[in-house]
């Protein structure tokens, strides 16, 4: 009676250990995927918006000291971070180095921070790709296993009636459904994040020389 109330979920009570294990793996995949999606979404959105605001201010003022003070407001933006690392290097060298050496050192510091920022942006994102690629197969494995067990039981019961076959197959197909439910958002989020991170990385590549030039040309 309770099973009939629970519908599809009621079938899980009869599921075998392998199917249950597959379902728990998929559930944990889904939980982690959604956590990454939420975390990365806020991170990337903030990085993009703060970078844009910082760039507007940078091209408006073009005074590195003022820009540095302003960049403190944008602590989560990628471009402000890169600029700050260049500024720190620029101030560390002071008047000790000549212009050529100064350019090289600042450029190196900016590139290093740009790389670090790129890594930070793309961290955890490959997990989404992994879930997107493997979850359907894991679900399929659970389904195949469930159907195997179901047919085995049918053979034991020596009955090929629909009543004997249908519940087992229905129960097994839950695994595929769970796999797809975990994979679809992961794939969509992966595509979104790779696109957004690509935009930020292009900005970093494009504006890093601008920052270096701004430090060198500073009177």
């Amino acid at each position, binding site marked *: 009676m309770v099973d009939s*109330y629970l519908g599809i979920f009621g079938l899980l009570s009869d599921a075998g250990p392998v199917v249950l294990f597959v379902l728990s793996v998929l559930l944990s995949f889904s939980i*982690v995927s959604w956590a990454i999606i*939420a975390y990365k979404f806020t991170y990337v959105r903030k990085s993009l918006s703060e970078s844009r605001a910082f760039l507007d201010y940078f091209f408006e003022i073009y005074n590195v000291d003022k820009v540095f003070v302003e960049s403190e407001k944008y602590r989560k933006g990628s471009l402000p971070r890169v600029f700050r690392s260049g500024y720190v290097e620029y101030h560390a060298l002071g008047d000790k180095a000549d212009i050529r050496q100064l350019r090289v050192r600042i450029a190196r510091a900016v590139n290093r921070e740009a790389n670090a920022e790129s890594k930070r942006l793309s961290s955890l994102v490959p997990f989404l790709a992994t879930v997107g690629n493997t979850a359907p197969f894991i679900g399929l494995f659970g389904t195949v296993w469930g159907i195997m067990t179901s047919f085995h039981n049918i053979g034991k019961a020596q009955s090929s*009636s629909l*009543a004997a076959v249908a519940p087992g197959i229905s129960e097994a197909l839950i695994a595929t459904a769970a796999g797809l439910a975990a994979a679809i958002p992961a794939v969509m989020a992966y595509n979104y994040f790779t696109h957004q991170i690509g935009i930020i990385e292009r900005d970093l590549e494009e504006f890093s020389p601008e920052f270096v030039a701004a430090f060198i040309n500073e009177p």
Partner: protein
Amino acid sequence: MEKGQKRIDAEKNFSLWLVAAALMHAVVIFLAIYLQILDANRIVKPKIVSVSIVSLPGSGGSFEVSAKGGRESAPAPEAPHPAGSKKSVGVKEALPELAPVTPKKEAKPVTPKKETKPVKIKEKVPEAAPAPPKKVAVAPLPAKAKPKAVDKPADITKTLERLKQNVDKKMASSPSTSAGSLNNALARLQQKVQSEGHPVSTGSGSGKGSSSGGRSGAGKGYGGGGPSAPYQAEIASIIMQNWEFSKLLLKNSYGMEVYVRINILANGTINKIVFDKKASSEYLNNSVKKALEKSSPLPVLPKQEGTGDVWIGFVFTPEGIEK
């Protein structure tokens, strides 16, 4: 130092999202289960309320069997009810006596009518005339009863109680007339049986008109009476084995009943399949038909059933076969 702090902050942030995601999944799963339960409850509670059959003391169904099957049923202890002695109207005959006592309202839910349904389905001889299947058809009766049941379910129980009281009063007040009517009915029955040329054999039968009626008179165009209970049980189990049906495929199992009669020849072949009432699901109807076709030939009729054919009725529901 600053970078380490940033990393810790980031990890903390991610852990928070992880917890939030886990909670979100829990909520989604609970919502899904809750909606399933809600949906199931909505299906379980139909708008039409089925009226349960109340058995009054001493149903006259057995006389139907005795009339056809050539066996007399043991008289029921209550006098007025066995008065129904004609085959399909056994109970109806008893009612006219009650009619003056009971008001019109109460006459509608008279339950003995319903009680006779399964007996008719199982044991009625349909070849005699096209009329019997009409009597057998049970769909119109619940249809009439249902609207009342929906409107005033409490009234029905009250009405039934009043009816019972009236019957009891009637029985108490005029035992002689009841006994007289019983005797008259028995006399009429005997005359009828003799005029039809059936052997009147004595035998035991239940007061409720069970299917353990006797054999039919062969060669008169009549089918057999109800076959023996073990034989019925045997063929029911065979049909059940051949019935390929999953109630999971029915969205709503309420009111899914198929009343079907089968004509079995002496060699066990199913000669005819008659649907007295079909379910709204074609899947259920087809599955029943296929199961019956697949089950043919059934085991040979027992010797005591004679050489003629017999009609047996079944009620198929998603839960199984009700004989």
